């Protein structure tokens, strides 16, 4: 060992000494001393013997290195300003296709604490939280590893709640937590969790508020949407270090804070689902982006839902939102409503798309070529004519001889 260490130090560590830069070297030395001092402090800090952790944290050992902490919350209480019992009436079909409205007992709320944020097979999930609604209670399980050897137990035990019927609810779990669980399970040669339905609340929050808020982190979302403010919360970025200090030096002083932080993370998932349900039901009332929500439904081929959301928010829609609404009306053959929107946009904003749609409508549906020509000309006046516009004009002119003169005039003017 010593020879390799010396050789490595010769190649790396001595760099600063070698240059004769005394300041750089003493800075390095200072850091080293600080590290040693910190380590001593950690070792001498409050310690709870590993064995007694279950009592200290209120859990039970599943195996030597895996502790399960289970709490049951009556649904009658509040989280922020959200009534937890409202979960009972959430219509899940707003968040996932092909879901029966009442599948509340199949929901599994999931959040993890990990050794790093980069992902990849070396990132460890050392704390897994799962929550379910059962018989009027919210059951919240936290699996805490006290060593790597507890990982298998963790996943094997958690599998009871994670099966094909589970509907996973997470915050950014699609791209972070779930792939990590799969990665660790593969490393342990376990069959990865088979999740069919996954409601990622980060995506839904972004839909509703990305354009309104500066960020959509869980913290901001809790504050803005749930009126929930954490007190004495462990900062998320500290979590890996708390666990490292515990595993390396036996420092358990901040484990309770870690568990509390993570407990809030999972509980907020439940509250957030309840609140987002209300938001998606009535975007305008919650100052949410109805257009983005409608686009999500359009993408899922659920135009009726999209139409409903846009209608409810018509007063506050922007141009793109109104065009989307008109498009949905048109697809349903509700021409007068569509035309009203286009007409308004054409008159107030000179909206090209609306003018074009009006021209198309009058040419192909109403067969009123004069009016079609009129809208086409208005498009032309605002911009140098595109090839499409010129073609439309030529076609209309053929259909309606009286427009010939207009056409000649226009073409000569634009030339």
């Amino acid at each position, binding site marked *: 060992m010593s020879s390799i260490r010396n050789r490595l130090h*010769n190649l790396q560590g001595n*760099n600063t000494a*070698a240059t004769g830069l005394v300041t750089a070297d003493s800075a390095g030395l200072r850091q080293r001393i600080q590290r040693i001092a910190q380590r001593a402090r950690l070792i001498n800090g409050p310690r709870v013997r590993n064995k007694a952790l279950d009592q200290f944290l209120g859990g039970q050992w599943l195996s030597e290195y895996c502790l399960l902490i289970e709490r049951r919350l009556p649904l009658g209480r509040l989280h922020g300003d959200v009534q937890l019992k409202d979960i009972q009436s959430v219509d899940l079909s707003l968040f996932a296709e092909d879901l029966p409205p009442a599948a509340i007992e199949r929901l599994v709320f999931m959040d993890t604490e990990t*050794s790093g944020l980069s*992902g990849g097979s*070396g990132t460890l999930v050392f704390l897994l939280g799962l929550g379910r609604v059962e018989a009027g209670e919210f059951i919240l399980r936290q699996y805490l590893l006290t060593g*790597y050897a507890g990982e298998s137990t963790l996943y094997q035990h958690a599998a009871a709640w994670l099966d094909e019927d589970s509907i996973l609810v997470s915050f950014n779990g699609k791209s972070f937590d779930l792939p990590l669980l799969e990665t660790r399970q593969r490393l342990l040669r376990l069959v990865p969790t088979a999740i069919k339905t996954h409601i990622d609340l980060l995506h839904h929050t972004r839909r509703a508020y990305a354009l309104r808020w500066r960020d959509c982190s869980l913290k901001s979302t809790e504050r803005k949407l749930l009126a929930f403010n954490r007190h004495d919360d462990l900062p998320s970025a500290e979590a890996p270090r708390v666990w490292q200090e515990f595993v390396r030096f036996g420092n358990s002083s901040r484990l309770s804070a870690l568990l509390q932080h993570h407990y809030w993370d999972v509980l907020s998932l439940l509250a957030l689902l309840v609140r987002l349900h209300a938001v998606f039901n009535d975007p305008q009332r919650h100052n949410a982006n109805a257009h983005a929500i409608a686009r999500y439904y359009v993408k899922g081929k659920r135009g009726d839902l999209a139409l409903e959301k846009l209608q409810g928010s018509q007063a506050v829609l922007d141009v793109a939102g109104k065009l989307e609404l008109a498009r949905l009306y048109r697809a349903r053959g509700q021409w007068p409503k569509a035309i009203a929107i286009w007409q308004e946009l054409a008159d107030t904003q000179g909206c090209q798309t609306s003018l074009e749609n009006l021209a198309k409508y009058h040419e192909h549906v109403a067969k009123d070529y004069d009016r079609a020509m009129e809208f086409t000309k208005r498009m032309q006046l605002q911009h140098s004519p595109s090839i499409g516009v010129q073609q439309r004009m030529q076609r209309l002119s053929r259909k309606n001889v009286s427009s010939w003169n207009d056409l000649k005039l226009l073409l000569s003017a634009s030339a």
Partner: protein
Amino acid sequence: MGQLHPRKQTPPQAPSAVESVIAQLAGESADCITSTLEIPATSGAYSPFPAGLDERLLAALRLRGIDQLYSHQAEAWRLVHEGRHVVVVTPTASGKTLCYNLPVMQAVIRDSAKALYLFPTKALSQDQVAEVLELNRLSGLQIKAHTFDGDTPGDARKAVRLHGDIVVSNPDMLHQGILPHHTKWAQFFQSLRYVVIDELHIYRGVFGSHMANTVRRLLRICRFYGSNPQFILCSATIANPQELASRLIGQQVAAISRSGAPRGRKHLLFWNPPVVNADLGIRASARSQSNRIIKRAMRQGLKCIVFAQTRLAVEVITKYLKDYFDKDPRKPERVRAYRGGYLPGERRGTEQQLRSGTLDCVVTTSALELGVDIGALDVCVLNGYPGTVAATWQRLGRAGRRHRPSLGVLVASSQPLDQFIVRAPEFFCDASPESAHIDPDQLLILLDHVRCAAFELPFTRGESFGGEHLEDFLDYLQEEGLLHREGDTWHWMADAYPANAVSLRSVANGNFVVIDISGGGQTVIAEVDYGSAALTLYEGAIYMIQAQPWQVERLDWEGRKAFVTRTRADYYTDAIDYTRLKILDRFDADSQPGRSTVRGEVHVVRRVSGYKKIRYYSHENIGYGKVELPDHEMHTTAVWWQLDAPLLDQHFTHRWQALDGFLGAAYAMHHIAALLLMSETHDLGRAVGNGDATWFATVDSNGRGSLRSFDGDTADSTVTDSHFVPALFLYDNYPGGVGLSAPLYDFRHQVVERARQLVQGCACLHGCPACVGPILHSSRDADQNAKQAALLILSLLQQQKETDYVIN
């Protein structure tokens, strides 16, 4: 290899354009051609399609007009099916891709096996996918070949991972993007049957050592998924392909080195530019000669390629040729430059023009030495000796395909190696190509990869990784807080993604982008690697792309950005850099009274202090500029030769004379050492100074060797006698060293002796670029000039006990 003809013998008359160009050149510049070599055409050696080759593949090959295989392709098929790892060593354009595509595609369609292809660059990957897709199309097979690299869009990545039969990638992507996420590739690794590594010869030195460790990690992951892939490697000609392949994959490899592909006649001319000043031994520049030869060839309608040694030389030659051929902007370009640093789109465009034959000449660096498909060319001009026999043959291979005669011209520069080769071409013709060395157990590189491997899978007791004792590394990493040991297992613990901190190609990290801000916009026009940035992107530098000059206005070193504007400068710039060393440790020493040779560890600091402005065509020096950049530091191993002050004072009247001698001797020894070590000159660095870094030697404005402190002040006054122990350092030019200093120490006597022969045998009177280096403006002072000073130093270094004295 062919027959070497004495100079006067004219090549046989032949009607081809190539041969008439040779006749013209021989007629007008007979004195420049020191010798000619003719390599006769060879007819191909063929084999029938192997029994068992899938009917669909057979049909596809027939549709491509292939009715039989070259012998090396059939041999590859046979060895692969015997289960051996195989390395195929054949020249450019000999159909090596079928050597691996046939067994791989067969395994894909018969057994649903998977294959990983690794190419050193992204450009080569794309060529490969196109090739497989073509066979797919012809055969109606549905083999899925995809590139997976930095350019693969996010939504396509999952499809490639899950459904790709052949995944084409590069070592950097494997290292940073695939291995750390291996669980996402579980199905792929479970069925991985073949790993193809093309351009094997590129994997040497630092890059090769990293690559060998990346392969170790790959195999470790494969073992986890229960697969044990077979390797098929391809290499250009080097001395030790089998050894390199075996070192790279850590297993025995069978070699196929006889090509069955036919080859046209190849003429090779050795060209020494005419002497323009006999006194100073100055010859016309290699550039001017290369231009002449290319002009002759292009006027005959021949397609040409010019290889230059530096990016700067590429730009200068391109400018001269463009000034001549591309004067009229309305006509399509006939000449283009191609080198590292250009953006991918620009390079793809040039490759395409070459393949389609719309371009007549390309000027390039080693960038086109790789197997990028650029079609058939007729004439290859090497502007300067490429530094190694292997690189020379590989570049010459760019001209001449199948059935046409081709011409290669080696134009010597004034560098010692060039002069040596061009005057004694039989050395080149008889020499075997160089060996490629890697050191997979180089401590820092190994440590980097142990770290990455520990992230990918925990290490368990009894496991090994590389040639060093693994547990020492694991304990070290645990101490650093990166790993956590639990029982017999070391787990990754840190909040970090180690692969991102490790670059396979160097130790320092981060490319610089060159941003054009002329006209207010911000357009990225080039990329420059970290190592070259200090030498090419200092403020005031003229940076050239396709011979168009840009001036660097501002360099953001931390942000790795250089802001440039278009300019019309009639000059280019060349950096001036200094090197300082400090001795840290001595491993071996050979001490004699008054002199010693030592091998040990040194700390090297390199500083770019300024630059010269050099006018086009006249090459006069028209000004200097100052540069303020961070020093480039590294820790490496070196050999140094030193003489004590009393001995020097006996032989030299002035210290500057001794320093002159040291500088000249260092120049000669540097080149000889590179030759003996079969490496390139830039693999070694040289410096003259003393070991405590208080001073180093350089050339002052009068052309005399003088002492300087590292800040550039003249230091003579501060150097006391006890500090005046000049040493001549040759150091391994890579952080940590890649194993050059040990053999160099073994060669310590030969290096001095051969350098003395080189200087003594040089025809010049006072010293010249071919012996003691161009940095010394030699004075006409007959008894104490640079050449004699260097000879004196070399003979002082040489006076050893007879028993120690070995002449090779």
